Structures are given as structure tokens and as C-alpha cells.
């Protein structure tokens, strides 16, 4: 069951939203509608579902409607049309009191410019959510301190936000959101105001926290790198509409249209693609069944200068090169284990292209991709270079 389910959700800013909606039905563009009616389409019939524990990223250029969409999810902005279900309850139609309850108990928001209360200390900022629920002082203090501890700010509780750096302020923002222990975290460009190094640190930290918290996170960003780093799935927005939803790989490999493709174009592929994307099906010989002769034969067939050796359950044992194999044949060695070279370069399937690139140049043989000791595939130099050059199809070929 999805935690959040959005159905055909729209927001039109202006005096005559009905007219704009009608024009949307006629497939008029956002610009045309603005010209004809003076209304701005903020979000145009967005539909999606977010599963429990998922990090769902909403990405798009400036003005594409990301902030509007995320504010429709907790109804900071009133929807013009459509439904938002939070665990079966329709937020779009509920009364003020129930809405407040949802905001207090189920969803918290983290803001781009932190939105900390400057007249309150770090601790009292963090307590805010519990304070307005009327939780007693000792309890909310304890929970707030725990949340601050979690984001590494245990020592700063009596400072005011103005005394902290941007990164630390946003940690307070995060702690404030976590103190309520909500199921859903809404993060509107939460890291965009931070400089790149701090930003990356915060992304890592969020992912670390997520490992244990397992919150459902809606994360807004205009930065594809960020989206790919932290998103389990990504929704791409353009002019208020969602143009594609998919896993990071989906988006990169099968961009739905030109807009997505443009977005994806300048991503540094070396950071995104991993060993899994560029490995090939390995040619192997079986350590128990085969001898040097079979190995040589295979290598000649496939045009290889070495071949990997596994057991029957594909556990990687090592490799033999053509040289040693032919020497062994001449000396009439029967068993392949006698000539096995066990000094194997390995990576796991999530290793990034960058790291593979460094390793593969020192390696006399293709790199083995292993998981739990089993050989999944091999990576040859050409594939790495091809992928770095943005060659299409590298990924699908082996998928």
C-alpha cells in the first residue's frame, strides 16, 4: 500500500482556474493559457504513488512546479483539482482539524532557506512541532535532544540559529522535522542553499539516516546529480506536468522525451553508471570438470587471452591465461587448479565507473564483478571507455 497517492492533482494560480483547467483539457500549453486567461498553471494533473520507505525525488527546472507540488502534498497550497491520499485519507478534501492532525503526526517539512525561527534557540526550534501539540516540556526536550544528537548537533542546543553555519542550520531544520517522528518527510530543495561540499556531506548523511529511519521521503531538487544520488525513483517535471517517473537508471538510459534527454545529457556518467551497467556475460571454465585443453579451446573460440575459472555454482576461483594453459597442456597437466592464478581484480556491482577506470589500467585481465563470491560478469577496458564517452546502449545490452 502506498503511503502517498496523488491523483490527477492540479493547481492553477489566478482568478479563473476553471477556465484554465478547461484549456488544459484541450491540451493547451502553460504559456498559451497564461496568455489567454492570465492564470498560471502551477501543477498540471500530476499522478504518482510513493511507497513506504521510498526516497521519491521530484526534479525539474526552475518554475516547473516542484515547490507547488510538494506544498500541495501537505496543503500549504490549496489544490484546484485532484486528490492526495495519505494512507487512504484524502488530504485534499478533509477539514482543517484533520489536516492539522496529519501535519502534526504524519508529515514534516524541511525548507530550502531553513526557515528556522530566529528568536528561538536550536533546542526550542527543534521542539517546535511537539510544543504546538502540547507535549509536556520534559518529553519534548528529550525527543528534540535525541533528534539533534542524530544530526550531530548535540553540542549546540543553546545557540541561536544565527550563530550557526548554513549546513548546521539545515541540520537543525532536519532535526526539527524528525522530532515529530513523521512517516513522511517533505524536503523542498533542502540542500540547494548549501555549498557543494557541505551539500554532498548532507546527502550522504541523509542516506545514512535513511538506512535506519526508513522514512518516506519526498525530495525536491533541480539538480540531476543530487536526484540520482539519493532517489529511489525520480519524477521529472516540466511546465507543471510530470513527464517521466522512473528509477535513476530508467531516466538515464531511457529518457522519455527530448526534455528528459536534455536534462540527462550533461550528467557526469562516470558517477552514475556502475559496474553492473557495463559488465559482460563472463566466459568461464569449470574447475572440477575442465582442464587446460578445454580452457585453451574456449579462449581460442572467443578470442580471449585469459579465462575465468569458477566452480559449478559460479563461485569465482581465479583465472588462467592462454600462455600458462598452453604450457600446461604441453606438460600434460590435467587439473586446472594447478595452474590457477588467484590474484584476481574484482569489484562489486555497485562500483562506480570512476573507480573501475582507475583499476582497469593496472590490470592484465578483465575485471571480475562479484557478489557474495559469485562471478556475475566481467568488464573489459573497451566497455569502460565506451561508457565514459556516453556510448548508448551499453547498459541495455547487459541488462
Amino acid at each position, binding site marked *: 500500500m502506498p503511503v502517498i497517492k496523488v491523483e490527477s492533482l492540479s493547481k492553477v494560480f489566478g482568478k479563473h482556474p476553471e477556465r484554465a483547467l478547461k484549456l488544459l483539457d484541450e491540451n493547451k500549453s502553460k504559456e498559451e493559457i497564461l496568455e489567454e486567461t492570465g492564470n498560471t498553471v502551477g501543477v498540471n494533473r500530476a499522478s504518482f504513488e510513493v511507497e513506504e520507505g521510498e526516497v521519491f525525488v521530484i526534479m525539474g527546472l526552475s518554475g516547473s512546479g516542484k515547490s507547488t507540488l510538494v506544498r500541495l502534498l*501537505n496543503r500549504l497550497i490549496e489544490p484546484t483539482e485532484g486528490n492526495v491520499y495519505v494512507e487512504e485519507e484524502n488530504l485534499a478534501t478533509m477539514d482543517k482539524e484533520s489536516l492539522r492532525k496529519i501535519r502534526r503526526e504524519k508529515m514534516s517539512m524541511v525548507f530550502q532557506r531553513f*526557515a*528556522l525561527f530566529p*528568536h528561538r534557540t536550536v533546542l526550542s526550534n527543534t521542539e517546535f512541532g511537539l510544543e*504546538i501539540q502540547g507535549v509536556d516540556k520534559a518529553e519534548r526536550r528529550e525527543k528534540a535532544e535525541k533528534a539533534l544528537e542524530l544530526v550531530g548537533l548535540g553540542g549546540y542546543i543553546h545557540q541561536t540559529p544565527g550563530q550557526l553555519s548554513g549546513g548546521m542550520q539545515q541540520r537543525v531544520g532536519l532535526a526539527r522535522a524528525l522530532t515529530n517522528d513523521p512517516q513522511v518527510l517533505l524536503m523542498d530543495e533542502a540542500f540547494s542553499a548549501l555549498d557543494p561540499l557541505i551539500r554532498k556531506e548532507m546527502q550522504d548523511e541523509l542516506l545514512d539516516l535513511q538506512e535506519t529511519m526508513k522514512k518516506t521521503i519526498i525530495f525536491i531538487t533541480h539538480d540531476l546529480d543530487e536526484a540520482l544520488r539519493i532517489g529511489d525513483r525520480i519524477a521529472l517535471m516540466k511546465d507543471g506536468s510530470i513527464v517521466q517517473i522512473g528509477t535513476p537508471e530508467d531516466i538515464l538510459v531511457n529518457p522519455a522525451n527530448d526534455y528528459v534527454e536534455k536534462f540527462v545529457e550533461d550528467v557526469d556518467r562516470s558517477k552514475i553508471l556502475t559496474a553492473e551497467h557495463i559488465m559482460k556475460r563472463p566466459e568461464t571454465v569449470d574447475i572440477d570438470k575442465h582442464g587446460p585443453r578445454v580452457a585453451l579451446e574456449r579462449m581460442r573460440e572467443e578470442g580471449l587471452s585469459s579465462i575465468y575459472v569458477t566452480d559449478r555454482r559460479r563461485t569465482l576461483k581465479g583465472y588462467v591465461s592462454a600462455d600458462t594453459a598452453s604450457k600446461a597442456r604441453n606438460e600434460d597437466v590435467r587439473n586446472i587448479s594447478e595452474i590457477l592464478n588467484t590474484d584476481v581484480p574484482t569489484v562489486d556491482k555497485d562500483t562506480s565507473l570512476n573507480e573501475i577506470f582507475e583499476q582497469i589500467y593496472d590490470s592484465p585481465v578483465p575485471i571480475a564483478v562479484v557478489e557474495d563470491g559469485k562471478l556475475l560478469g566481467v568488464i573489459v577496458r573497451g566497455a569502460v571507455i565506451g561508457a565514459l564517452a556516453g556510448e548508448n546502449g551499453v547498459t541495455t545490452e547487459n541488462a
Partner: protein
Amino acid sequence: MLDFMENVPVIPLAEGVSWLTDRITEIFSFIFEPIQNQFGAFMEWTSGQLASIPPIIVILLVVIGAFFASGKKFGLAAFSLVGLLLIYNQESWEQLMSTFTLVLISSLLCVIIGVPIGILMSKSRIAQAIITPILDFMQTMPAFVYLIPAVAFFSIGMVPGVFASLVFATPPTVRFTNLGIRQVSEELIEASESFGSTGSQKLFKVEMPMAKQTIMAGINQTVMLALSMVVIASMIGAPGLGRDVLSSLQRAEVGTGFVAGLGIVILAIIIDRFTQSLNK
């Protein structure tokens, strides 16, 4: 060019206002009279209490207060000491206490009335559209004019003085409260709402604290206006330093007029610095 106007009779605007004032006086006399009596008595009592404290104690309290309020600096404290001693020396102490009572009570009422109106204005565009021109009107009308209905409603003395001060001095508090709340950043409002604040939680936990500095600046102006109303209010019998100024004006006594005026200036400076330092 305006020939055609010759045929239009004079609109009886003045008569209309007089008529209206009379009616109001008549209809609401059951409110006005007790206010005049009870409230008048209360103010007499307050200023009597103040005047009955030995001046030296008042002066010491003010000086000590000034020292701490100004962040342990000696300037304001020294000024208060010298200024108040001078007023005492000029035998104007009792008048000072009357004036201070008038200012204090007027200002308090201005704040009690002005802040809620300012809040209302900040919350409702319609309220803002209606109230803004009224405030403009209240502030541009010459202050003397308010004395007339004040006398009609409350006869003479301190009470009509307070009434005239209210009309004249409330607008800055209203304006600045409205401004202060409207200036609170959108993101902070969103933050408080996103955690499920009710309207009043948002007001008292976020908007008012954030607007505090601005509101205090408005209150400071209100207090200053109330003080400036004191001289004018003496024309309708409000006691205090203002009355000395007025009587010396009537008798063309430059010297006494100056002394009483100086007393008002000293009081003004002390009050101004005090309210400003509260803002830090």
C-alpha cells in the same frame, strides 16, 4: 468656471457633524458618564498615588532603571538625575506626575486597542482596506479638532484628554503592528503551518515574536504622540505641565512657559530612551 456652483446651496456639513455628535452624546451618555466619573476618579487616584511617593525615591528608581535599561551606561542615568532634579527644583513635580499619568494611561490604552486592530488588519485584506484611510484621517486631522467631541462626550479634565490622545496617538501602533506581522517571511509562516499550528499558535509563537521590534517602534511613536497631546489636552482642563505652558501663553510669560516646556522635553527624552531600550 465655478459659476454653476453659485446655485448649489452650502451643504450643511458642519451642522451634520454637530448633530451627529449631539446624538452620540445623548444616546451614549449612559456609557460616557460612568466612564467620565469612574475613570476620572481612577486617574486622579493614580496621579495622587504617584505624587505621594517621595520625589527622591522616584528619582532614584528612574536613575537606576535608566542605568540598567541602557545597558549599564551612565548617559541616560545622569541625564535623568539632572533633569528630574531640575523639575523638582522648579516646583513642577506635581504637574510632572499628572502629565506622566496622562501619558502612561493614554499609551497603555493605545497599545491595548491598537495592537489587536493591527493584528486584524494584517490578517484581513478587507480590514486593511477599510482601516488604512481611517488611520490617515485620524493622523492628518489637526489634533485640536478632537478636543471638541472629547469635551462633548466627557466634559473637561483628564478623561477627555485621554480620549483625544487615543484618537491622535493610536495610529502608529496599529500601522506598525500590521507592518510587522506582514513582514514575517513566507517561509517561516509555512514552517509553522506545516507543523500543524493553529491560527493563534502561529500568531503568538511566530508572528508576534518576529514582529516585536517593529511593533515596539510603533509603540515608541505612540508614546511620543501621546506626550505631545498633553499640552493640547490642557486646553480642555487636563492638569499637568501642559497647563503651565498654556497659562503662561495666555499671560505672555516667556520664562514660566519655557520652564514648563523644558519639563516636557526632559520627560519626553527619558520616556523615548526607555521605550527604545526595551526594544533591544
